[in-house]
């Protein structure tokens, strides 16, 4: 600050280069306080906490490879004749978009590898987001204060679906063209607005000459731009909230036990990025994805069997394939229920998982912060709901691939479709009941272990001839881990008569809440965890049990 400081003897010599660079940057960007606050941020160690990282890294890989692809792709539907190096397409008429994709695959150095990395990374990105979302769901990591971040993540998943879909449509090949036609059909099924939206989107009748260029800007600019913003927001919130952790000794709702971001997590995460990149690149180098040269250019008069969207849209495909082709003709207007109903279910079904955190917090009435994760078994109703949701989702994936299932398991496609139709309603119910029973069984097992210890497998014969199995008591740490979760009491409707003896009207929502709360936390839905008294009584007396 003052000249006096400069005059002071420099006993320590010149600062190291890194320090000087950091100092230079801090003087201009003020990053010191930011770095100080965040560099020692603690991250707990658990493999399931790294699923989000798989998504982040595959997203980065998609952006990097995508930039390379834009250098060679021509988003144009001008009709050209192919004279490139792929023989079975020689002399065929095709759009410039399809031709440039063929050129990327066969004539651009490294083009096919980059294309396959891009596509595989997209498939893995979406799968990673799905699994990451389920991890957050089943461990209750969406509870306060993380509801907003849950919604951010959900939006990323949905936007990822549509970004993937628009990207799949860009090469203008016969497979994706069929998919775009399918989408146009879904748009047309919307009452009143459908035809207008379709005309605006395609610039006239399908397919027109505009949609590739339009999907291109949506695919490379609009949606990834929003996603990038959401990813940044998602990560800022992760930093702000700090990471959740599983219950264990020394872990409380007020601390995070793990390793600091710098240097440990930086090294781990950096290494993990290259491992994920390596896995995706190796797969892309070995396994073909979307071989558009075999599929052929899009022509509206052609179609192939086995025309499915990429997996993340398979759910929507399944809904339409399973739905009977109903339609209503009303005053010269057609309402295509066979497509409209699946479209509505698609939205409602996705929204169901998105709003679940708010439903749960309303039922529990719990407005506290939660930083300790639930083990799925300790929240049986939530776990059962999640499994039911996943079951319905997976059944619809089967529906989306009903023809492939039929041919490869030598079944009738009609039988598969009927299985899907019934399974969509019955499967989730069965999954709900079975999952809840399994959770309760596991809770009982935990209680048994806490009270009686672990079965050691050693059989002891007592002097009077009785055989007993020796149970080893659990360690203090294990006992803590198994009993750290809290259990809710079912909410009551509260007094209906006030102090003056006036009866108040009980609202329907109140009754519903009490009913749901009873279903969540009633006797049928959780096993009371062992109390200290129970533990003492059992362990103080006889040595066995």
């Amino acid at each position, binding site marked *: 600050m003052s000249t006096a400081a400069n005059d002071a003897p420099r006993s320590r010599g010149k600062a190291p280069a890194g320090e000087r660079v950091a100092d230079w940057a801090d003087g201009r960007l003020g990053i010191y306080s930011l770095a100080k606050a965040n560099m020692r941020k603690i991250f707990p160690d658990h493999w399931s906490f790294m699923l989000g990282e798989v998504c982040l890294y595959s997203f980065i890989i998609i952006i990097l490879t995508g930039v390379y692809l834009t250098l060679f792709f021509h988003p144009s539907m001008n009709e050209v004749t192919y004279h490139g190096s792929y023989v079975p397409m020689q002399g065929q008429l095709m759009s410039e978009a399809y031709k440039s994709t063929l050129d990327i695959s066969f004539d651009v150095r490294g083009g096919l590898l980059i294309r396959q990395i891009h596509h595989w990374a997209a*498939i893995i990105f979406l799968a990673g987001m799905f699994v990451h979302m389920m991890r957050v769901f089943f461990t209750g990591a969406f509870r306060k204060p993380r509801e907003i971040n849950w919604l951010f993540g959900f939006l990323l998943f949905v936007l990822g679906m549509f970004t993937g879909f628009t990207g799949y449509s860009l090469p203008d090949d016969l497979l994706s063209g069929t998919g775009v036609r399918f989408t146009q059909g879904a748009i047309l099924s919307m009452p009143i607005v459908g035809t207008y939206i379709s005309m605006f989107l395609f610039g006239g009748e399908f397919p027109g000459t505009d949609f590739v260029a339009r999907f291109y800007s949506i695919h490379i600019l609009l949606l990834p731009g929003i996603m990038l913003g959401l990813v940044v927001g998602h990560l800022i919130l992760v930093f702000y909230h700090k990471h959740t952790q599983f219950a264990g000794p020394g872990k409380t709702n007020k601390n995070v036990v793990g390793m600091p971001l710098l240097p*440990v997590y930086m090294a781990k995460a950096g290494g993990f990025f290259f491992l994920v990149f390596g896995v995706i690149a190796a797969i892309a180098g070995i396994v073909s994805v*979307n071989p558009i040269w075999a599929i052929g250019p899009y022509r509206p008069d052609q179609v192939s069997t086995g025309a499915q969207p990429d997996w993340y849209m398979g759910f929507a495909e399944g809904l339409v394939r399973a739905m009977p082709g109903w339609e209503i003709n009303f005053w010269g207007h057609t309402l295509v229920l066979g497509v409209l109903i699946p479209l509505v279910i698609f939205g409602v079904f996705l929204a169901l998982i998105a709003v679940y955190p708010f439903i749960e917090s309303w039922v529990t009435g719990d407005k506290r912060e939660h930083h300790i994760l639930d083990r799925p078994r300790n929240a049986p109703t939530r776990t059962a709901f999640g499994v039911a949701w996943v079951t319905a989702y997976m059944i619809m994936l089967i529906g989306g691939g009903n023809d492939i299932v039929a041919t490869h398991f030598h079944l009738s496609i009609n039988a598969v479709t009927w299985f899907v139709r019934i399974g969509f309603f019955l499967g989730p119910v069965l999954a709900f009941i079975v999952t809840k029973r399994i959770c309760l069984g596991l809770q009982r097992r935990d209680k048994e272990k806490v009270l009686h210890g672990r079965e050691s497998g050693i059989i002891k014969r007592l002097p009077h001839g009785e055989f007993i199995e020796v149970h080893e008591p659990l360690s203090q740490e294990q006992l803590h881990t198994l009993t750290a979760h809290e259990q809710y009491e079912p909410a009551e409707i509260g007094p209906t008569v006030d102090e003056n003896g006036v009866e108040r009207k009980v609202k329907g929502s109140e009754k519903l809440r009490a009913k749901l709360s009873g279903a969540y936390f009633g006797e049928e839905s959780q096993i009371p965890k062992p109390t200290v008294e129970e533990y003492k009584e059992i362990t103080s007396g006889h040595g066995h049990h």
Partner: protein
Amino acid sequence: MKKLSARRRHPLAALVVLLLALAFTGGLYAVFAPASKAQADQTAQSLAIDEGKKLYAVGCASCHGTGGQGTTDGPSLVGVGAAAVDFQVGTGRMPAQQPGAQIPKKKVIYSQAEIDQLAAYIASLGAGPAIPSAEKYGPEGADIAKGGELFRTNCAQCHNFTGKGGALTYGKYAPSLEGVDPKHIYEAMQTGPQNMPSFPDTTLSEQNKKDIIAYLDAVNSDDTVNPGGLSLGGLGPVSEGLFGWIFGLGLCIAVAVWVAARTAKAKKS
């Protein structure tokens, strides 16, 4: 001429004209009709028909009837032609093992000579497409790209983009065309076996058929090179998605487990 025109109202004039016309068409037919087979050939042919009839009586008659007239268990074979027999028996589909939604391809149990005899017998029941000669389905002069376009227009909706097969209703299916003899592909197009529509030469010309066969040979045969690597059955996004989930995400998770298990030793400070 005058004499002729004078008698044009004669009651027998019409008869004379008719006789002349018949003689003229008969003469034309005699000139243009294929010459009848040589006597020796005829004997070989009738021998083959006799042998074929015996084979037919043993292997086929229980369903198709003793004279190929068909029963409730099998369709009439009158007029299906030698090509249909060569396809059905040559791919092992016939004789059928059991009735069902569709008769599958299986091991061929007749020798080519026996198949030819059977074909000769069936062809003798009524005219139908003959077994194509080798140059009709050979690769010479075929346009692969054109074949691809024809395939995508006429065949892909059941057989998939490159002929990997697909599902039809109620357990029926369009089989994979991988490793199918070009002759059998030609015959199938011509005769339309089982659930397949037939594509006679008026619909798909001989050149079209040749192009399609050449295209299939280029994209779906043992020596097809897949530039992208493993093709995952060529079934499209379903197998790609499954692979992505199991191996793509599976490997990433395996790596995550490995990374998470290796933690830094905390320094006491």
